[in-house]
């Protein structure tokens, strides 16, 4: 089912972050939401992910759907290993070998058992991406998911996300149009 966002508004104290936003996000597609900084893209995602309440407006088509997300920050448990960080969101059926295999695919072989605090920023980002993709999900929300990655890793991770999310609903927020186009996204520009 497509997602319909209608007349969504959100205000923090005296700052209107979102005002009457109306969007249509197609099912089983990658949709990129683009806007300059400070236009409330992250707030919109936070409302969609259930972390915030909108002041007014509605979102249809997300009820009962499982959401997975890559946040702007990595949001990893620093003292735990990459494998454990990924494993904590996986279903009980997911084996440790499967997790290690995925981490190996994104180039984290040999580092999967180290605390993530000892990994580089790029490695942590890749861990966060693997975590989001290995969780059980219907809608994947990506908030600037490739920031902090060098060009080679960025390209690899974009291919990885495309492959893993084929035929599923992905909402991508980015300020990089080339990135959005490479992902094969429908583009939506927030006015």
């Amino acid at each position, binding site marked *: 089912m497509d997602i319909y966002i209608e007349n969504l508004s959100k205000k923090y104290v005296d700052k209107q972050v979102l005002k009457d936003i109306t969007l249509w996000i197609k099912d089983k597609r990658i949709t990129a939401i683009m806007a300059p900084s400070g236009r409330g893209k992250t707030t919109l995602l936070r409302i969609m*992910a*259930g*972390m915030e309440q909108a002041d007014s407006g509605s979102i249809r088509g997300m009820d009962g759907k*499982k*959401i*997975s*997300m890559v*946040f702007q*920050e990595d*949001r990893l*448990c*620093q*003292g*735990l*290993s990459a*494998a*454990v960080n990924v*494993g*904590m*969101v996986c279903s009980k059926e997911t084996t*440790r070998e499967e*997790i290690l295999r995925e981490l190996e695919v994104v180039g984290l072989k040999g580092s999967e058992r180290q605390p993530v605090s000892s990994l580089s920023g790029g490695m942590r980002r890749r861990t966060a991406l693997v975590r989001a993709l290995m*969780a059980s999900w219907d809608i994947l929300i990506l908030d600037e998911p490739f920031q902090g990655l060098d060009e080679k890793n960025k390209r690899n991770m974009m291919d990885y996300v495309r492959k893993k999310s084929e035929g599923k609903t992905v909402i991508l927020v980015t300020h990089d149009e080339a990135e959005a186009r490479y992902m094969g996204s429908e583009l939506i520009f927030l006015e």
Partner: protein
Amino acid sequence: MSSTTADKKRIRLWAIFFWLAVWEMVAHLIGQEILLVSPVVVLRRFLELAAGIEFWKAAWFSFFRIAGGFLLALLSGILLAVASTVFPPMRELAKPLMVTIKSIPVASFVILLLIWIPSRNLSVVISFLMVWPIIYTNILQGIENTDKQLLEMAQVFQLSAYRRIRYIYLSEVVPFFRTACSVALGLCWKAGVAAEVIGIPEGSIGEKLYESKIYLETTDLFAWTIAIILLSVCFEKLFLWAADRLLERLTAG
């Protein structure tokens, strides 16, 4: 912890020998064992004591009670901190109690408790009372300081309560838990033995210290003090090692 910080915290062997030499020299200058015994004599006496069954009986008597009080306080402090997080009025209720316990001098507790309970159990309660507020306060602080962004992450991924506790709360609370245990482990021995010296339970280390004072056996006083330090340090190391292994297993995938 970086190796530089670890290096700064480490006590150097040469520094220990320096202070032992100063002690030996001062003892030699004073020349009266009743005032200050030489470290060599103390060591010899300690080994003599350690060769007898009475020493181990007294060590076990005090260890069992002080460590028991510590473990009871640890368990109930953690439970109360969790309850205070889940049910905020509990926190309000616990606050005056914790402030009172922290403010009352150990000696006042000891005298009061001697009226209520047999002296042989005194060190259990005193050890408990010294440790309980420290564990409670630190664990509560650890839970409250849990990264809100991680909790949001758990909300989005719909992690179960079990996974939130195991992976998020546990890893966030561990540094607070370690600090609390480190402080509390030293304190429970100091307060526990002090209580025994006042209450003089038969067969305790406190009783031995008291007898050293009565009979002016300064050598015994020093030897028993070494025993207390060793018991305290060994218990601390063993406990923290076991806690670290347990936490490692809990937070491993």
